[in-house]
């Protein structure tokens, strides 16, 4: 693969259960205080409670007016995008003189999970078409591009749990190849009763707050939110005199081709993706100062990641941040890439929330206290349903 230079990140925005903006979220990660609760937006008919990580009610309620014409997923994406654009010093009107692309990952956000609508149809009614119109108007990348009046490429990636990382990876290539001057990239997903039921039925959801990599881990907790980054060409950034906050150095993605719901037991696809990402970045594993793992808290995922980490990064500290955000599905790869950039810049990673005791079978522990890190690069990795593995190598912003 061709090695192209670092791609500048000039803005970041994040909304999730841990905070409604990036600064608040990072502070929450440092405290490690979490409070996942039973879902509030739908009545769970399960006899057992499965906690979830919902975005703060006041953010959600600004959306829930009658006749809301865009989905909650798009609402989160717009919210995080606003923070990112503000940080980048870009007004919407500034965008019209540039080639602006939009690349967003999602899962729930593109699914026809119209449960109430369908229930009414099954009951022989003819329900109002509002939910269908909302679906048709709420394809995340399309909705964002429409809101901005962006005229460049538009892409909604639906790669399950790696969508957010995949969207950023693809967007970085658009910048590197001169297809766009600016790309608004990331991921977004909202809590869904349908998805909630699905993961519980797959028996990979935990009734307790999740414990990634812990010996007693019992599965994942779902989360929701959005993570958006602004990527820019060097020329565009220099012309605007905008500081480079971080960089995307390389992206690798590979399929396990092993099983549709379980990862390859030796992490074959993950290793391929790591290798491709490092090659693209022109780096080796020794250059990686820490890793933000996928770390969902399921038996399988954490086992496989530990195997790969032990093999390729035996001395490198790693954390999972899903103990603080839950598994935000299509948003995860983006939110976690943003955390990785922020932690790299700050020079330290917080304790991996939910972890207290090492699993003797894993022979690997995430950081259990704040850990200073040095170095110019870090990795954020995502393992998706279907066996997709995506890895972003990110770098510090350069004073240029």
């Amino acid at each position, binding site marked *: 693969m061709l090695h192209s230079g670092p791609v500048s990140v000039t803005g970041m925005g994040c909304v999730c259960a841990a905070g409604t903006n990036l600064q608040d979220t990072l502070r929450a990660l440092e405290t490690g205080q979490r409070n996942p609760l039973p879902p509030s937006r739908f009545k769970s008919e399960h006899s057992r409670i499965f906690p979830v990580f919902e975005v703060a009610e006041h953010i959600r309620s600004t959306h829930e007016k009658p006749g809301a014409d865009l989905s909650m997923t798009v609402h989160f994406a717009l919210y995080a995008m606003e923070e990112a654009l503000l940080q980048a010093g870009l007004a919407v009107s500034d965008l019209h003189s540039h080639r602006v692309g939009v690349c967003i990952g999602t899962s729930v956000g593109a699914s026809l999970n119209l449960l109430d609508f369908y229930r009414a149809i099954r009951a022989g009614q003819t329900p109002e078409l509002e939910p269908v119109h909302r679906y048709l108007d709420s394809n995340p990348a399309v909705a964002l591009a429409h809101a901005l009046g962006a005229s460049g490429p538009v892409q909604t990636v639906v790669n399950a749990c790696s969508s957010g990382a995949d969207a950023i990876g693809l967007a970085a290539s658009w910048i590197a190849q001169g297809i766009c001057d600016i790309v608004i990239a990331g991921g977004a997903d909202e809590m869904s009763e349908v998805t909630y039921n699905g993961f519980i*039925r*797959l*028996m990979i959801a935990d009734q307790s707050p999740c414990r990634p990599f812990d010996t007693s881990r019992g599965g994942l907790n779902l989360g929701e939110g959005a993570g958006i980054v602004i990527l820019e060409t060097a020329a565009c950034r220099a012309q605007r005199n905008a500081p480079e906050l971080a960089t995307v150095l390389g992206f690798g993605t590979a399929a396990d081709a092993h*099983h*549709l*719901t*379980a990862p390859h037991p030796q992490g074959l696809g993950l290793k391929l993706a790591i290798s491709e990402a490092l090659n693209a970045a022109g780096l080796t594993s020794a250059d990686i100062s820490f890793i933000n793992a996928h770390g969902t808290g399921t038996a399988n995922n954490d086992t496989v990641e530990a195997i790969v980490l032990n093999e390729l990064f035996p001395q490198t500290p790693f954390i999972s941040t899903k103990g603080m955000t839950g598994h935000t599905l299509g948003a995860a790869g983006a939110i976690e890439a943003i955390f990785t950039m922020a932690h790299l810049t700050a020079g330290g990673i917080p304790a991996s929330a939910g972890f207290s005791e090492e699993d003797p079978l894993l022979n690997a522990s995430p950081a259990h206290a704040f850990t200073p890190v040095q170095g110019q690069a870090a990795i954020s990795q995502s393992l998706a349903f279907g066996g997709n593995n995506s890895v972003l190598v990110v770098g510090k912003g350069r004073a240029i």
Partner: protein
Amino acid sequence: MDIKQQLKQTLISELNLEGLSPDDIDDGAPLFGDGLGLDSLDAVEIVVLVQRLYGVEIKDMEEGRKAFQSIDALAEFIAERRI
């Protein structure tokens, strides 16, 4: 119909084991890996089928692992727990 026969027919139809008849499934043969060759996604589907048909809940896959050794094991598990 006896429960083992019913279980075999259910597995064949619900897991799309085309071309198999209940006679092809040995009562004592492993359901997973070798034998019938079912996998983890089939396992969680069987959990739901057992609950629908017999009202027996399998709370986690530790419990499931024992029950899913074979048709014999599954039938015994259900018989012990159904009301």
